[in-house]
């Protein structure tokens, strides 16, 4: 059991989401950075899709009511456990009564507090994710609040963390070749042209070439971009159709919207592109006011990136298990 002792709005329980219900209008939700969630779970020996706490407003603080292995992934939020530094991407064991505190991260947007056994809330429609729009799932379909107590699932023995802790090389380092960084600091987001790409004429070129800024009207539902407006050559009337996170829609004002984890399930704005799924986690870590540039990609590239990401998660799961066993044998 853990108790939330300090929080601001917008922090929720999330797992990998509830896909499979878009046809009845239910958004998939789930972690904005599912890669961080998977890596945290792999390190703790949890099931890959165990629920964690997604923290997007800081400071956030919780108290452990029993000895619990945990890890913070996603960002460095200068966490402390009873005042002692806790590194991000480094699993440790908290004693009963200890307080985990976090501060606003300098880079990135969302921290995942992963706990051995996972957050044990009742699954609704197959998932523990909070659906804020629908008001169900997670912790009563709402943001976490001070005083909330969350039960944890049964920890797997593979979750035993050595007394000195166990860290991983973070994905930005480990997969630096797979996720290149632009010299000017803009996030490079790979995308595939979508249905109405051709209708934007010369503006399509400007879509790919310019650097866009994430506007303050950006949240788990979607990111609004600001920059030089782009518009179709002639106005288009679209019929409502299903959409997925990553779709880049262009409303009449010409400032694109990227749908994110809490994406609407249907849309009707012209679509200029779709972000490849393996790059969505990086968008999930993009901050309001930061800049992005779209890079034209392909399915083949997406397949290669996914392969590298899945390989990394598997490597963490396998090697962390091996290190834990070796230390126990040598002790």
């Amino acid at each position, binding site marked *: 059991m853990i108790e939330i002792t300090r929080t601001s709005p917008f922090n929720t329980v999330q797992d990998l989401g509830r896909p499979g219900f878009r046809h009845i209008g239910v958004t998939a939700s789930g972690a904005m950075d599912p890669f961080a969630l998977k890596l945290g779970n792999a390190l703790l020996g949890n099931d890959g899709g165990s629920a964690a706490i997604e923290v997007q407003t800081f400071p956030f603080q919780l108290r452990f009511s029993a000895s619990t292995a945990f890890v913070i992934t996603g960002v*460095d939020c200068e966490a402390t456990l009873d005042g*002692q*530094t806790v*590194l991000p991407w*480094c699993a440790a064991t908290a004693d009963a009564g200890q307080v985990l505190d976090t501060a606003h991260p*300098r*880079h990135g947007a969302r921290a995942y507090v992963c706990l051995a056994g996972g957050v044990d809330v009742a699954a609704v429609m197959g998932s523990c994710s909070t659906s804020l729009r629908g008001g169900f799932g997670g912790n009563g379909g709402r943001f976490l609040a001070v005083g909330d107590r969350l039960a944890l699932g049964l920890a797997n023995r593979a979750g035993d963390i*050595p007394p*000195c*802790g*166990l*860290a*991983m*090389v*973070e994905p*930005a*380092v*480990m997969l*630096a070749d797979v996720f290149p*960084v632009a010299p000017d*600091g803009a996030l490079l987001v790979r995308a595939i042209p979508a249905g109405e790409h051709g209708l934007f004429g010369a503006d399509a070129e400007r879509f790919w070439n310019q650097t866009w800024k994430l506007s303050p009207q950006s949240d788990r539902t979607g990111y609004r971009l600001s920059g030089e407006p782009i518009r179709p050559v002639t106005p288009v009337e679209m019929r409502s159709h299903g959409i997925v996170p990553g779709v880049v829609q262009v409303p009449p004002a010409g400032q694109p919207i990227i749908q994110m984890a809490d994406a609407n399930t249907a849309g009707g704005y012209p679509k200029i592109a779709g972000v490849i799924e393996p790059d969505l986690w990086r968008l999930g870590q993009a901050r309001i006011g930061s800049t992005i540039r779209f890079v034209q990609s392909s399915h083949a590239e997406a397949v290669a990136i996914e392969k590298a990401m899945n390989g*990394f998660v598997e*490597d*963490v799961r396998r*090697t*962390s298990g*091996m*290190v834990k066993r*070796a*230390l126990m044998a*040598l002790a």
Partner: protein
Amino acid sequence: MSKMDLSAPATIETLTAALEAAGVDGLEITRPGQSLRIVISGTAPAHTVSVSDTFQAKIVKAPMAGQFLCDLPAVPGCQTRKRPADTLGFLRVGPMLLPVKTETAACVHRYLVDHETIVGFGDPIAEITSQ
């Protein structure tokens, strides 16, 4: 010289100035009950000085085989992260980093292996001074 108080600020200042003038990187003096280490570096803080009055060397050994790292690998585009006070480095095994910690607050007196050296189980990694 044998009467010199190594912890006196005036002594440290004199020695530091002499080292800088000589273009020497650092100096280490160890005597029973006292030790002084001055490191000259190009960026602030200019001098890292650690003086301990009751010097007791202790060897930290590798808890398992791996590649020894003094610091966390640098993240492209981010500032280097400070390692916690009780962590003197990490053993890298594939994608994993095993923190090498000291039991109590201590400072690294001397690393016995270079950054990125492969070490075996039980190999000495560092000499620490506890107070």
